[in-house]
């Protein structure tokens, strides 16, 4: 699991990236950078702790509560520590029509956890999400930026084994 250190700070490369993001917006509208910057933060720490949010608020010169309000609204931000691989599977209609419920059932059984839980070895976190805009290629799940599509029980086995290495 990724832990936040006591002194929360972006790596120099990420800090440069954040500066570049802030400059995209008109002067005084740096709050617009909040969502992209939170993504960068999640990339670095794996999740966004309240310390990270306070740090981001400082960088963007906005109130901490403005960051809390936003981070809790959008479902992509993990507000608690997560495993090494976060599997976000789509539970919405079209994916379920294509046998999603069975495949996800298999996935849960294989990992021995329910949605919202993390395996004891800290390798996998399961998260249930809504439509991922890949309905024609369902069932679908996403791990970080990668989409895994047309899932079957066998494919799930392969992916999990590959990632467990």
């Amino acid at each position: 699991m990724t832990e936040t250190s006591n002194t929360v700070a972006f790596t120099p490369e990420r800090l440069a990236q954040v500066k570049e993001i802030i400059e995209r917006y008109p002067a005084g509208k740096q709050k617009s950078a909040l969502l992209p910057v939170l993504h960068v933060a999640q990339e670095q720490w794996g999740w966004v702790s309240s310390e990270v949010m306070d740090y981001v608020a400082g960088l963007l010169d906005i109130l901490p509560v403005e960051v809390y309000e936003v981070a809790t609204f959008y479902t992509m931000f993990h507000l608690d520590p997560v495993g090494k691989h976060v599997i976000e599977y789509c539970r919405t209609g079209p994916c379920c029509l294509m046998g999603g419920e069975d495949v996800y059932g298999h996935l849960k059984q294989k990992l021995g956890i329910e949605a919202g839980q993390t395996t004891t070895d800290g390798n996998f976190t399961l998260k249930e999400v809504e439509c991922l805009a890949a309905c024609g290629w369902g069932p679908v799940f996403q791990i970080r930026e990668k989409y895994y599509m047309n899932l079957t029980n066998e494919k799930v086995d392969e992916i999990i084994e590959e990632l467990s290495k």
Partner: protein
Amino acid sequence: MARKILTEHINVPGIETFEVYRKQGGYAAVEKALKTLTPDEVVEEAKKSGIRGRGGAGFPMGMKWGFLAKPEGIPRYLVCNADESEPGTFKDHHLMKCLPHLLIEGMIVSSYALGANKSFIYVRGELMYVIRILEKAIAEAKANGFLGKNILGTGYDLELVVQSGGGAYICGEETALLESLEGKRGNPRNKPPFPAVKGLYQSPTVVNNVESIANMPWVINNGGEAYSAIGIGRSTGTKLISASGHIQKPGVYEIELGLGVEEFLNSDEYCGGIRKGHHLKALVAGGSSVPILPAHLIMKTAAGEDRLMSYESLSDGGFATGTMMGSGGFIVFDETACIVRNTWNFSRFYHHESCGQCSPCREGTGWMEKVLHRIEHGHGSMHDIDLLVDISKKIEGNTICPLGDAAAWPVASAVRHFRDEFMWHITHPHEASQPGAVYQGEMALV
């Protein structure tokens, strides 16, 4: 083969790169528009094309552009809505992934028309890999002089920013999208004022769907009139349809508006028919929020005419016997699909995605989901069916944004056309709550 406006070159290897895209005639519209047309002339072409918003509402794009306020000294913005999250819709995802330069070319032409010097593409955060593709393409376009300062020496400046969302369907609603773009919670705004007057940063703003904007290069190259000659009646041009569910060939297809629903469903050029050994039970023609129709009403209108893939034909008969074009999310159900379970699933989606700002949607979506969950799991009673219809009516039209309507319609239409299936769940609770159990009686009440 039908005419392709957007996807003509989609299978050309390397089309996602500037070089190949340019070789296929890409960015010609930018040259033509910036060098030979005034912004107003570009708006005029958009109006003539008759193209309607492809995000779901179907509002004429040229007219929307015409509403943009142009006060002196205040910047104007164009924001592209790429927050595609409507269940059953994945066309923008496909288009941006395969043809990033087509969207960028459209953005340049459209921004020029509206007098915007900074434009945004708001992409849902889950599509981070598409964001990277777009950012790469933007860098290429910039390196080749199609973006940045003094484009092609015409004196026109444009900067394109790709913004990532954070996982919220509601941000596909244009004012929620603007709030999100300002770094806030995706709470839709009360209208008026409309974005055309007070949008992003309180400045005049136009928000358009990816597909709408991607049509603009063709419109500029060939003229608005040529565009309006394609299609049928007020449904001009082509439309990307995202086909999913129980069909042979799920995927994204570009069709000329006016194509028969039956042809689209059964022809090998498109869906290729229902999967083998099964038959059509029901169909959602425009994304999860539009009314679901039973097989016989989707093929023919109540008046017995062939149903066409057009805004008018799909909505023929109103909500009693018709549906909507919506965003073109074509979800097909064969006889193995349980309508009650699917309705519950969709209802859970809207419950999960309600922003929580206004009371009918915040409370009503959750209530409907709970009632549907009970019916599906064998704990329903007969009055629950009417209760569902009543809750949906109380939400519809009374909310700040259309999410309330979108949550109400699938429930109301499922009960309208499949009431017997709901009743079966209540009269046979044990049977109905078994995994995979599906009502095998009459397919639908008319």
